[in-house]
């Protein structure tokens, strides 16, 4: 067995471009998922029972089916309902919707942890729903939703690898292609695994740093 890593590094520009696509898709999708998830959680909280139930079913479906099936539905099924997307937009859309389902549950549990009396007090003094969300719910639940949000962001990063299956030119697709052209699968996948491992560890470390910084100052007394 020969293990020649130089074969891989002679393709550095392609690898850099693949890594760039991976990171951009990840950041865009994670931000979109968090915002979408937050809006869904707010809608479920204040939109009435029917709304809450309907979203509950959608979220159960999104959490109960594999991401790969969802992305196939968007990419191959989309054109049949008039939604033709290129691989990258389809990937971002699919990843955002998938992540939003989990983020909305994170925010919902955060909302649930805020004492009911605080909301009622807000309603009593005449705050609007927006004000209640912005001034009571959001600050009080921040510490609680940070760790699971960080977790979800890392999970979404790993899911970007799945997008290679619908031919998004991210790092997994790039390195698999280099591996098959050069007959250096193991080397290519080894580099790929190291890349993701490092990115996950760095993200986790930065996230924990942010958490301790936020906890140290204790903006919010919960």
């Amino acid at each position: 067995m020969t293990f020649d890593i130089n074969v891989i590094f002679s393709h550095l520009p392609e690898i850099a471009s693949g890594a760039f696509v991976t990171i951009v898709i990840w950041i865009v999708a994670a931000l979109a998922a968090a915002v979408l998830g937050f809006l869904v959680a707010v809608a479920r909280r204040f939109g009435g029972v029917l709304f809450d139930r309907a979203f509950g079913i959608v979220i159960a479906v999104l959490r109960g089916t594999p991401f790969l099936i969802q992305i196939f539905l968007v990419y191959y099924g989309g054109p049949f309902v008039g939604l033709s997307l290129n691989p990258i937009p389809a990937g971002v859309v699919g990843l955002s919707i998938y992540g939003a389902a989990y983020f909305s549950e994170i925010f919902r549990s955060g909302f649930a942890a805020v004492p009911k009396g605080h909301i009622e007090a807000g309603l009593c003094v005449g705050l609007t729903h927006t004000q209640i969300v912005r001034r009571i719910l959001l600050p009080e639940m921040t510490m609680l939703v940070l760790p699971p949000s960080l977790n979800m962001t890392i999970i979404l990063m790993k899911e970007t690898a799945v997008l290679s299956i619908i031919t998004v030119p991210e790092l997994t697709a790039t390195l698999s292609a280099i591996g098959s052209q050069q007959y250096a699968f193991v080397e290519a996948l080894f580099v790929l695994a190291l890349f993701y491992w490092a990115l996950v560890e760095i993200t986790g470390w930065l996230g924990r740093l942010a958490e301790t910084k936020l906890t140290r100052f204790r903006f919010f007394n919960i």
Partner: protein
Amino acid sequence: MSTKLFELLLQASIYTVTISVVSILIGFAISIIVSAMLLSRQRLFMLLGQVFISFFRGVPLLVQLLLIYNLLPVIGINVPSIVAAVVGLSLCTAAYQAENLRGGFASVPSGLVESAEMVGLTPMQIFRRIKAPIALRLTFPALVNEAILILKASSLVSVVGIVELTRMAQDLAGSTFLPLEIFASAGLIYLAINWIVALAGGLIERSLPGAPR
């Protein structure tokens, strides 16, 4: 979509369930060893356990599967793709389960263990009669969760060429030009399987010794 297509999907889902169940069981066995390493007083073992967990949780499962599928033949082990799939899923789930088990063992009240020592139980008896049942009771919900995650993750073994539910759906979608119906049906089958697992998990959880009544 005809019932024939749906039947084909159902047949393929047998592979999905089998692969997932086998991987969960093998993963559980591995996770016992890894969690023992994590709780060991030997620094080297502890470090090895931590690296194992960090690697298999930090690398996407798809990459792990591709790596194992391509690595095994290179080091001279020619295995059918089903073995590569099961090895990949088992190692991945072992990392997650080991963390759960470690948490479970760490939450066994030390007073219970000390009193067992006082009445003269051997370490083996303490493990079998006190630590293991309590840790299992505590980690069972997480185990059900992990089973559902692995059932979903098993859709990825389609990349190493096993015709399970997702691969069958892909093949059928390509040959019939009904991707919407077929992928939605596959999604529903996954949903039904996961729902059954969650339901069964809840029932077993309530019948475990020490469950709140």
